[in-house]
């Protein structure tokens, strides 16, 4: 499972000044996991705590979320030609009859 690649959060590494300060690059990796509902509970918790205290990430997360929602709502509505399903079935099962 992909979430495992960041599942063990690196919150206490030697490069951190303070273990209570979230790592920005870690949060960036988590942002899309959270957005796509792929994050573990631990990852989501870590991300939520960070977003609450970080204005740039708060903005980015909500912009990304708004775009994702708009993409879903505006790019789905291509109507299927009415005769397409019948044409496909006709072609397939006519072929089957011949076989």
């Amino acid at each position, binding site marked *: 499972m992909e979430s495992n690649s960041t599942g063990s959060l690196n919150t206490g590494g030697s490069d951190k000044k303070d273990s209570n300060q979230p790592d920005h690059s870690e949060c960036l990796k988590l942002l899309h996991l959270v957005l796509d509902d792929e994050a573990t509970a631990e990852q989501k918790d870590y991300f939520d705590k960070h977003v609450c205290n970080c204005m*740039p990430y708060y903005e980015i997360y909500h*912009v990304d979320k708004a775009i994702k929602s708009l*993409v879903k709502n505006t790019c*789905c509505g291509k109507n*299927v030609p009415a005769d*397409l399903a019948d044409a496909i079935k006709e072609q397939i099962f006519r072929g089957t009859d011949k076989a």
Partner: protein
Amino acid sequence: MSDSQRQNYSQKEKESIFDKEFLPHIGPMYNFAYRLTFDDDDAKDLVQDTYLKAYRFITSFEQGTNAKAWLFRIMKNSFINDFRKKSKQPAKVDYQEVETFYNSDDVDKAITTDLRVETVQDMIGDEISNALNSLDVDFRTVIILCDLEGFKYDEMAKILDIPIGTVRSRLHRARNLLKEKLSDYANKMGYKN
């Protein structure tokens, strides 16, 4: 799939699987085909071709498994093998650049955006649709699979035949490109950021 894994369906079972498990996905399939080809006739041909292949190889499909993902995988391969060759698409994306994205300094650049939630919400569907359509097909595809169709990363990896890490980095890059397009549009139209 080895011969031992192939299903042994009767004619009646094949028709039932086709009607109950394959055909209900014709809407998303057509939408995906249209977003790949941008042409009604080509989209119809691509959907038709995909369903013909699905039926031809129906013994490789295990009843009750994810038919939608299976069909999308066939369509993606059909598009790459047949349609993309015909349409003389521009050169492919440099994936090396994409795959190393997370390890580069560009990661830091990605935390800045001049787009605001209100600006995005003010946009009408055409802007989003045009921005999505203007992306390279490989970037467009990951956004369609994830955001429109709701596939999980592991399903996308199987559909696209790429590792999950690549799915994630490609999706990340695709979203940043989409945001850049929307941001350009917002600036051009005088939206207040």
